[in-house]
């Protein structure tokens, strides 16, 4: 892995009213690196993830992507977002479109690719995530795990420079978590730059290059998974791990 920073957050602060959800958060993600963000509910993990493509605005600090500060709005922001794939907790597939159309929409409407080219890549991606035979169905006809795999394919169709995963398995039935994590693990192995907010400690151990632990809006510590899980430095992380790992 090259140590070439792709995503750089510097002293980021965010308030929701009186609630200080991000406190001076600084985080650098290198090209090809997989950073898994864990921490208790309400610690600001999701907000951090959503701030990277500016679905959440920030109050102070800077976020740079690929060398440039995030644009505030308009076409340049849309362009930046098209380079960052995002996968949501609730899938958010477009309910009125077929699976195939969901995956083709971005390349055709945002990138202006021809339908034939977009269709070919969409089908290849659906095949990769194991949904090719469902291409003509509507999202509602698929299981949660299948929908989330389509959502990953939809994001990949834009050939993004990085992928953001905001609790991608939290809304899934337990038996479907594995199939989604499997796709994510293979992406990680291929060298995709990823920020993953999750409660799946197994995934963090297996696929992360680095674990970032957040609590109360602060990035408390970050370390390679073996070091973090084996020997957490902060009291807060030890406490959290003792609660999630004891069963």
């Amino acid at each position, binding site marked *: 892995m090259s140590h070439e920073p792709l995503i750089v957050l510097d002293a980021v602060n965010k308030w929701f009213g009186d609630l200080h959800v991000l406190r001076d958060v600084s985080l650098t993600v290198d090209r090809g690196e997989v950073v898994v963000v864990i921490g208790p509910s309400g610690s600001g993990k999701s907000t951090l993830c959503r701030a990277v493509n500016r679905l959440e605005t920030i109050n102070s600090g800077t976020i740079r992507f690929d060398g440039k500060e995030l644009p505030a709005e308009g076409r340049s922001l*849309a362009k*930046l*977002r098209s380079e960052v794939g*995002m996968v949501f907790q*609730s899938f*958010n597939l*477009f309910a009125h479109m077929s699976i195939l159309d969901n995956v083709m*929409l*971005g390349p055709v409407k945002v990138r202006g690719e021809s339908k034939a080219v977009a269709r070919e890549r969409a089908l290849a991606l659906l095949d990769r995530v194991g949904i090719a035979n469902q291409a003509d169905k509507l999202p509602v006809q698929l299981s949660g795990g299948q929908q989330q795999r389509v959502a990953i394919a939809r994001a990949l169709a834009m050939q993004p420079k990085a992928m953001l995963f905001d609790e991608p398995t939290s809304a899934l039935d337990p038996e479907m978590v594995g199939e989604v994590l499997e796709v994510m693990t293979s992406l990680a192995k291929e060298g995709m730059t990823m920020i993953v907010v999750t409660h799946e400690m197994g995934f963090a151990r297996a696929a992360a290059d680095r674990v970032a632990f957040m609590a109360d809006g602060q990035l408390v510590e970050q370390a390679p998974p073996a070091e973090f899980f084996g020997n957490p430095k902060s009291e807060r992380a030890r406490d959290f791990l003792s609660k999630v790992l004891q069963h």
Partner: protein
Amino acid sequence: MDVFSDPANLQLYIDGFLMILKLTGASTLLALVLGLLLAACRVSPVPVLRAFGAGWVHLFRNTPLTLVILFCFFGLYSAVGVEFSDDLHINNYWLAVTGLSAYTAAFVCEAIRSGINTVPLGQAEAARALGLTFTQNLRLIILPQAMRSVVAPLGSIVIALTKNATIAGVIGVPEASNSMKTLIEARGDQTIAIFAVFALTFVALLVPVGYGFSALANRLMVRR
């Protein structure tokens, strides 16, 4: 009922309802387009557009339609000089369509806006995350889903519009209620029968419209 056995009277009845259909057809089309644009204004990030949309809705939804139609004639045409045609009848027809569309668009706008509120926030977020612009998001993701959820209320609006088209009579457009008045004045002995025929014709025209919109609403409903 022998009032309708006179061919001239029958023609008056038929022409009256044909005019209602012509008024309704043109006004429905214009009101849908205008209502859609107003709804887009009301949810847009531009404050001026939002204020314009809100102003339109407040003005036209809270003004009696009779007043709006009268304004189209005495205000737009007589005072301001807006003229659609040299032919008085054609001119009055378009003045009435203008009033009906402007008025109905306010209701269409509010129906569509409530439809937009039924689309989960995640849909718009996913579209933004893909890099779609605000207009693309509205056109490709939000409105197609919003429109499907408001087919039934739009049906009610079209039904109301059809009945409201009779108000075009106040500026001399020869529609059904004008025909009815003429017939009653000529044949006062058959007032009840004449009323009944006109009322039942409206019912016969509009009951299928109601069922049609319900069926369409079921078919187009977005399943989540």
